[in-house]
């Protein structure tokens, strides 16, 4: 089917099987490889993107559901929240293997969009769906707090 979406700020027209998960359209079709495959069933968060401004697991989102939507991947994440989160991530050297980190950053940016001043509990709740097997969690927590502080000015 024909799909039209705004992807990272540009119009994107596609002709694909509408049941294809958004993840594989981003990766195999469009070569936007920052979004990762980790589990295929919304259990790990490595595939997190923003659809119409909200975090979404692209591995379980059929591409037909985003027809007409605005989709942002790590490559196009330039909101104030995403920038602040990325800056904090760099300052604290959060990534280890790095594989889940795009998803972590997209989830963290979404968390700060919804909640500019998250408590520890809010961070645990908001980031609980994003697995990091390297367990970079101590720094994820701190980076989100640092980003929130910077955004509040």
């Amino acid at each position, binding site marked *: 089917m024909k799909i039209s979406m705004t992807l990272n700020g540009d119009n994107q027209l596609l002709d694909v*099987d509408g049941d*294809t*998960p958004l993840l*594989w359209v981003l*990766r*195999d*079709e469009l*070569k936007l*490889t*920052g*979004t*990762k*495959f*980790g*589990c*295929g*069933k919304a*259990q*790990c968060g*490595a595939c997190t993107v923003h659809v119409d401004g909200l975090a979404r697991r692209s591995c379980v989102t059929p591409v037909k559901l985003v027809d007409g939507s605005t989709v942002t*991947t*790590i*490559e196009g994440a330039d909101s104030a929240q995403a920038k602040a989160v*990325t800056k904090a*991530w*760099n300052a604290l*050297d*959060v*990534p*280890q*293997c*790095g*594989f*889940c*980190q*795009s998803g972590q*950053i997209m989830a963290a940016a979404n968390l700060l969009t919804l909640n500019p001043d998250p408590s520890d509990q809010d*961070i*645990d*709740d908001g*980031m*609980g769906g*994003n*697995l*990091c*097997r*390297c*367990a*970079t*969690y*101590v*720094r*994820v*927590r701190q980076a989100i707090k640092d980003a929130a502080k910077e955004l509040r000015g």
Partner: protein
Amino acid sequence: MKSFIPNASKKETIKTTIFQPNRRQFIKGSLGLVVALYLPFGNKGNAQQNADKQIMPNAFVRIAPDNTVTVLIKHLEMGQGAFTGLATLVAEELEADWSQMRAEHAPVITALYKNFAFGIQGVGGSTGLANSYEQMRKAGAGMKAMLVAAAAKKWDAPESDIEVKKGVISHKGTANTATFGELAQAASALDPPKDVTLKPTAEFTLIGTNLPKLDTQAKASGEAVFTQDIYVDNMRYAAIAHSPLFGGSVKSFNADKTKALKGVIDVVQVPSGVVVIAESTYVALRGRDELDIQWDNAKAETRSTQQIMAEYLKQAQEPGIVAHEHGDIATAIESAEQTFTVEYEFPYLAHTPMETLDGVIRVNKDNTVDAWMGSQLQTVDQGTIAGVLGVKPEQVNLMTQLGGGSFGRRAQPDSGFAAELAQIVKTQPKGTAVKLIWSRENDVKGGRYRPLTVHKIIGSLDKDGNISAWQQTIATQSIMAGSPFAEAIKNGIDPTSIEGASDLPYNLASRQTSLHTMTNPVPILWWRSVGHTHTGYTVETMLDFLLQKANKEPLAGRLALLPEKARERAVLQAVAKMAEKSGPTAKGSARGLAVHKSFGTYVAQIAEVTKNKEGLPKVTNVWCAVDCGIAVNPNIVRAQIEGGIGFGLGAILQEELTLSNTGHVEQSNFDTYKPLRIYDMPAVEIEIVITDNPPTGVGEPGVPPLGPAVANAWRRLTGQMVTRLPFSKSINNTMAEV
């Protein structure tokens, strides 16, 4: 394109050349013509580790006209910090400015890039930094000497008047200065030094500092390229169905439904299963799920993990092959005032790196082979691919990619994944690349687990409360058997089965450690900290228990049993101070202590634990003291220890891999196999105990003490000694007193 992103570009604009690094040469790189300065390899392919003989620097450093210095990293970067750590060693001796440093994976040339600990190209056992410490410093020092010589020649000055500092070469007494890039070409025409002098520790300016990591920016922007991100021309996508039972094989299959799907190109059988080849990953995975396969289970393991555990427990009732013995253990037990017997049960554990096993291989028309993989044992994978495809190893251009986690999983002694993919590629036309990505279900159900293990310990106290006897019997599968490292097995003892138990540090009057090596078809593998994952737990929980029974304090009791020179002492004392300084234990919580040496690094931890709503342990804080010799990058040491604590905590809380009563793996994805999530991560404080011992690894040593520290806190909080793991399974499994 960032130069630290490995060789394959997404559109394959760069064809990596297998180069001959024994000579100076020019390499065509993404930045145009790059002057490559290679220092010849001293003892042609004959590695030497003797500190007194100089290992001449070799193909590790490249200086470009734009003044960037690229270090070729011989070990897989999988999150442990190899890129930054090894580049730091070069930069220190080269007197480079950190901002000019880059890192990328070295090609696979075993003679040049072998790990001195193994003799092959590969990394594991937390050896990455330790075995590179002199080699990379010498590479940097040799390069500096050549730049100095080039400057001396250019400015017609004695070499002793040339200074190098922070990436700038200058001539004392004149205004002459040059960058590395400006002198690289001139230097490449000179003979490399026969000998180099390394800086004394006291003069280090980069080693020991928190330099920012070289790969952070790429990994925090989605730009970093992993194997999963490799897309080359004419590429097909594969998905595989494996036998649901270990040891099973394909009897027959029907692929009619699969072949009816649009985008399916082929369905083929390989020794390890049935493979769908398609035009996209999604179609390959869908097609895989439509396959109707009959399996031959004649040789398969059909027992449950419960049955396997029962067999191990039975075996562990009597001692096995003795690995260590001193004192008269039988008499000591007989004459003891009190004797306690504890049986421990450890489950199979999966590594579940966030990036599942994956790879891309292409046989070119000229019979050379291109392979992209996050390979941890490159020599083995290269050789295996060559063997399957009928070419010579040097015809396989294995391009090491960033590993999306490993924890041991990408170090495959049988090259299982590489062999599987090569078998698949063999069925496809020459010139076609095939990309295989394991689904998470392939990964969780695919074996290569931390071995299921049983320990039985009989511990005795004499009338004065001293530990008079310690008899420890272990039943587990051998990890080394059948691997390229099998020669490490001596007298029937696989050292990875008993490490951390047979060599426990305490002075005990009589002690015996013995081993039963069990066999079954469930494939196993080293899992972050290997044997220490279970030996650390048993030794430190049993010792803590015996100390409590003898009315001794955890810290003082341990110190009294440790030799004067034991490096455990300093980390124990440091961690006790850290916890004390943070204030009293919270109400409703308890603290537990553990110390364990692994891979040459000493780690002591104190965990503060309370009970959560479900009645399970909630670890609120962990204090940790580490002695890893010289900490090349303390920030990375901390990161690795933080990660090790999270990895170890997940394992003891909820992780286990079980087989049903038909032998089927009962877990399949992260909904049933449950690594630690952020809400279970404690606050962590780490102190690095400064010593000037040579650096030892930090990738694994953070894991072993965490389990026993938590278990000891839990026992002191609740009276329950958890001996059957994970905690979630058997929180009420209290020990029986004899």
